[in-house]
């Protein structure tokens, strides 16, 4: 009797185990946080150097359209206007998401509503393979197939936002699809039965109930896809043309933040203005990625409140 009393009032092996386990997981998450913090610190300090050390005005950086960091303009100011790249990055990202979303939703609905068993069996590996193809390979296929195709169908050189969009479309498709599948699957089965029992067709059920309930999840999926597209470098660099020009259309060569960063970073020296300017581009990428994530969170919360 007293033994039990003692057991109950004192820590046991299980208590130690739990502390031990808790310790380990805290250590791991702490390590991950440390990694993130160090990389964020690194990029932020480098990226801000353009404005603090080189005294470039932030407004000029964001609104200027001339990118030539190694040269000075007539007034002796460095020419670093990142607007063309910002615009292009946004264009390819948004367009890629716009093109990919219907396909992703189609596939997701097929996998969840139309033919769950067969669909998952066939399409799950398809999605995983699309993820598995390296971006270098996407880039070269884009360069040797999509660019000539665009050139022949629309004229021009073939390089430009359209080519970038088409390559990115395939690259973000798996992300949007698999996240959409998750959110559609999360719609409770009884919504579907309720709708069908009221005499709705399958499409009416999908359209009016399933998609409507899954909207926050689907938006999240799209934003995650966009954030992937925004950060993709190698594949885009190969097909976008890398001309730092305000894009005039979908077919003229242009340059995204990542492509400029990848192209230029090896040819500049640490600590110089051209190098710092490139890090400022990286900082924009980082901030955008943050914005995308915050958006996802807000949408997620809204969606949660609804339910």
């Amino acid at each position: 009797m007293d033994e039990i009393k003692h057991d109950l009032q004192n820590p046991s092996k299980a208590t130690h185990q739990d502390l031990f386990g808790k310790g380990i997981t805290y250590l791991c998450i702490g390590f991950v946080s440390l990694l993130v913090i160090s990389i964020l610190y690194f990029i932020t300090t480098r990226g801000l150097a353009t404005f603090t050390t080189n005294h470039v005005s932030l407004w000029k950086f964001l609104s200027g359209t001339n990118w030539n960091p190694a040269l000075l303009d007539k007034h002796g100011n460095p020419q670093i206007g990142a607007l063309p790249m910002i615009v292009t990055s946004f264009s390819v990202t948004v367009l890629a998401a716009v093109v990919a979303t219907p396909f992703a939703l189609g596939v997701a609905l097929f996998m969840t509503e139309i033919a769950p068993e067969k669909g998952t069996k066939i399409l799950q590996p398809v999605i995983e393979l699309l993820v598995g193809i390296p971006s270098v390979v996407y880039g070269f296929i884009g360069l040797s197939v999509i660019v000539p195709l665009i050139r022949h169908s629309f004229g021009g050189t073939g390089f430009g936002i359209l080519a970038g969009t088409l390559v990115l479309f395939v690259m973000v498709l798996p992300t949007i699809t698999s996240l959409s599948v998750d959110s559609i699957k999360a719609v409770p089965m009884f919504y579907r039965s309720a709708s069908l029992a009221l005499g709705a067709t399958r499409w009416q059920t999908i359209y009016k109930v399933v998609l409507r309930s899954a909207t926050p999840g689907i938006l999240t999926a799209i934003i995650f896809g966009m954030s992937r597209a925004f950060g993709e470098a190698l594949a885009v660099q190969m097909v976008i043309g890398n001309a730092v020009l305000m894009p005039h259309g979908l077919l003229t060569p242009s340059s995204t933040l990542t492509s400029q960063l990848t192209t230029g970073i090896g040819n500049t020296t640490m600590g110089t203005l051209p190098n710092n300017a490139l890090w400022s581009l990286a900082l924009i990428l980082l901030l955008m990625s943050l914005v995308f994530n915050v958006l996802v969170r807000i949408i997620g919360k809204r969606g949660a409140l609804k339910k």
Partner: protein
Amino acid sequence: MQEYDYNKTHIIDIPLELAMKTENLQVFYGDNHAMHDASLEFPRHRITALIGASGSGKSTYLRCLNRMNDRIATVKGKIMYRGMDINTKNINVYEVRKHISMVFQRPNPFAKSIRENITFALKRNGIKDKNELNKRVEESLKAAALWDEVKDDLDKSALALSGGQAQRLCIARCVAMKPDILLLDEPASALDPISAAKIEDTLMELRENYSIIIVTHNMQQASRIADYTAFFHMGHVLEYDVTEKIFTTPQIKATEDYISGNFG
């Protein structure tokens, strides 16, 4: 459907040796006051049934008894076990749960073999001897009246068992730990009648050696197996007495209405 007077209760003291008791137990989910002042005594080596309609708080109450509500709700009041209040911070909840074990409404065997379902927790508690483990497996499966059905398939996945078998495996799993008290949360409600009957038989046999507290929405089940029955309604314990009395001469209007099927 009328509102009842929750101040009028009929709760007896148990004249036998006690397994455990609660004093003024209250449960809050956030702002929601789910359980009001429940003070009940549970006899040793008897079956006590907790009955009441859905949402009456009987499951919530049961889950407090081995601190399974720790993470989801705030529990106030005393839970007395062996002269100690086990609802305090310095109590080792893992030890509590070794002595006060629980079977849930939905059968939840581990995704392991039948044998491992039983031995898993035993091994973690330091029993390494193979013979001892085998003995415990056989004993507990026999106690749960499952042995004959599975003795040749001990190394097959427990997920292949039928719902009723899986539930008896879950009971065996608890019994193997040789707990003091068994808590059962509607153990038969998800099962077919034949399986449910087998579970009842099992409980009747276990009664010899264990103190059993069972939540059920099936009044007939309670009347068949329980020695004492408590009636819960809207977060209050309104009546607690010998089972027979509850079902033949209830003292409280709400109990009477419930057992005669006026609601629920």
